[in-house]
């Protein structure tokens, strides 16, 4: 398929500037990666409301908590692996437990980080954040949704985590597409199987659906950008209508979107499922697209999973 691509990070920076203009209580923190996370765009417009915390992410999260406890809407950004792994206890104790209004918005999630290798890639961040009570977890599908989600996070009172990729991602939504925390988006109708993805993997689900159509399999595609809370109604409908689900995420299959969906399905109306994602492995250096192929984050893997689910039904 021919896709147009756009940058999520750029739209994050753009949304922050709009928020800064509209609300006086928006404060942005970064840990020496403001050029990469694009919080530097905000810093340029609102230097007084931006604080670089240096390479000290744990302190950044505590500082964010103090600002939020004083009535600020705080965005704290760095790479996904540092934002969630290095600071998990600070987020748990100082942000999630007291339910403070801190938005942890991370870039360079997944393995499409590329050349930096496994130390800078993140296949665990969604799992780490999803397990925290009070936490909202969003994995936007593309640039436009990132813009809307950033604004939605500011409107939501409470701790949130959002992750973005480093690369430009295929455009799935436009300015008119609705976004609401807790609501999934039907991208494509279908009746034989449901493909639920988030982030860049929604585009792989759409590619898979195109190919499956040629095999007379009608695949429904859903953008599950809201990992927590999950859109349970859309899962119920998918189960009833299609009787099988394949999930796809640029994240470890352990405790990510696939597990969230599988837990819900298993406890309500079990149907055959498969999860496509990183198979409990670290990544390595390489080009983003090369890595996606090597680690099975492809339409082909989704199609294989669909065929297996259909056989098991």
């Amino acid at each position, binding site marked *: 398929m021919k896709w147009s691509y756009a940058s999520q990070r750029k739209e994050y920076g753009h949304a922050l500037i709009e928020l800064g203009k509209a609300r006086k209580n928006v404060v942005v923190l970064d840990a020496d990666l403001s050029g990469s996370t694009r919080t530097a765009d905000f810093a340029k417009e609102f230097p007084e409301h931006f604080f670089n*915390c*240096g390479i000290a992410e*744990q302190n950044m*999260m*505590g500082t964010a*908590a103090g600002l939020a406890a*004083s009535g600020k809407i705080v965005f704290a950004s760095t790479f996904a692996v540092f934002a969630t792994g290095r600071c998990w206890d600070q987020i748990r104790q100082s942000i999630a437990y007291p339910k403070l209004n801190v938005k942890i918005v991370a870039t360079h999630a997944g393995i499409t980080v590329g050349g930096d290798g496994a130390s800078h890639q993140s296949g665990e961040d969604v799992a780490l954040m999803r397990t925290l009570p009070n936490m909202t977890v969003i994995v936007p599908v593309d640039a436009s949704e990132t813009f809307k989600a950033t604004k939605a996070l500011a409107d939501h009172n409470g701790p949130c985590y959002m992750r973005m990729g480093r690369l430009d991602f295929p455009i799935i939504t436009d300015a008119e597409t609705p976004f609401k925390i807790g609501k999934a988006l039907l991208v494509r109708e279908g009746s034989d199987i449901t493909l639920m993805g988030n982030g860049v993997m929604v585009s792989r689900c759409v590619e898979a659906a195109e190919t499956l159509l040629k095999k007379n399999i009608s695949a429904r595609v859903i953008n599950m950008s809201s990992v927590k809370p999950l859109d349970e109604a859309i899962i119920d409908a998918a189960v009833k209508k299609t009787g099988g689900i394949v999930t796809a995420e640029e994240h470890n299959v352990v405790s990510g979107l696939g597990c969230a969906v599988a837990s819900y399905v298993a406890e309500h109306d079990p149907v055959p499922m498969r999860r496509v994602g990183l198979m409990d492995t670290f990544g390595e250096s390489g080009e983003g697209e090369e890595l996606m192929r090597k680690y099975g984050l492809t339409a082909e893997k989704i199609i294989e999973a669909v065929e297996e689910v259909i056989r098991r039904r």
Partner: protein
Amino acid sequence: MVAIPDDVIIELEKKANLIRRHVIRMTRAAGSGHPGGSLSSSDILSALFFKVMNHRASDPSWEDRDRFILSKGHAAPAYYAALAESGYFPVEELLTLRKLGSRLQGHPSKSKLPGIEMSTGSLGQGLSVANGMALAAKLDRKSYRIYCLCGDGEMQSGQIWEAAMLGAHYELDNVTAFVDRNKLQIDGPTEKIMSVEPLPEKWKAFGWNTIEIDGHDMRQILDACEKAKEMKGKPTMIIAHTVKGKGVSFMENALSFHGKSPNDEEAKKALKELGENQ
């Protein structure tokens, strides 16, 4: 500096002892908790809650209040006693400490009890939060101050020094922090477990206005807080030399009472020493 009359000092010392008696009763009733580090910080808490800080128990979220963060969250019994005696909640509720359904969690929880500015307990995190509140005050052109009480064991946490750097970098002169330097942590003396000295030199090197005091001398505590208020462009760290278990002879410098409550007999003896009938 305005001289503080003797009767004010005596009153604050009495309140500190009242906090100590509550600590003994509370940890006895709970059957667990941390009396040692609560007793060492009782004088500092008395000074802050009954003299130094502007706060209103009738309006815990008053915008211009001074903020207090107990970074050493395990001293919660003394903190709760100071809050109750300030009028944030009924004094009788103190005896519910650590009980199922109580607002007095084993470590302070912001969402449960009025007056708690921040949930703490996982050590090394409070100073970062104090810095965030101080940045917010500066942004809002507010003159309230942030007070933070750290334990000396916390000085072993990397995050404390990250916060030390940030506080100096952003010139957070609205932060007054204390180290309750009682020289003991759960496993033994701090200098045996993991040396934190030379503490004053470290804080000075990190760019903080550093003051050393006897943390049980009420006048020295108040003077240090005044000096911190006068300092421009630098946050203040008050290194308060204290005695773990202060005020109860058999608990003083006794490692065993870091995280163990007194039994009935010990509690009785302790209360007697603390002037139960005062």
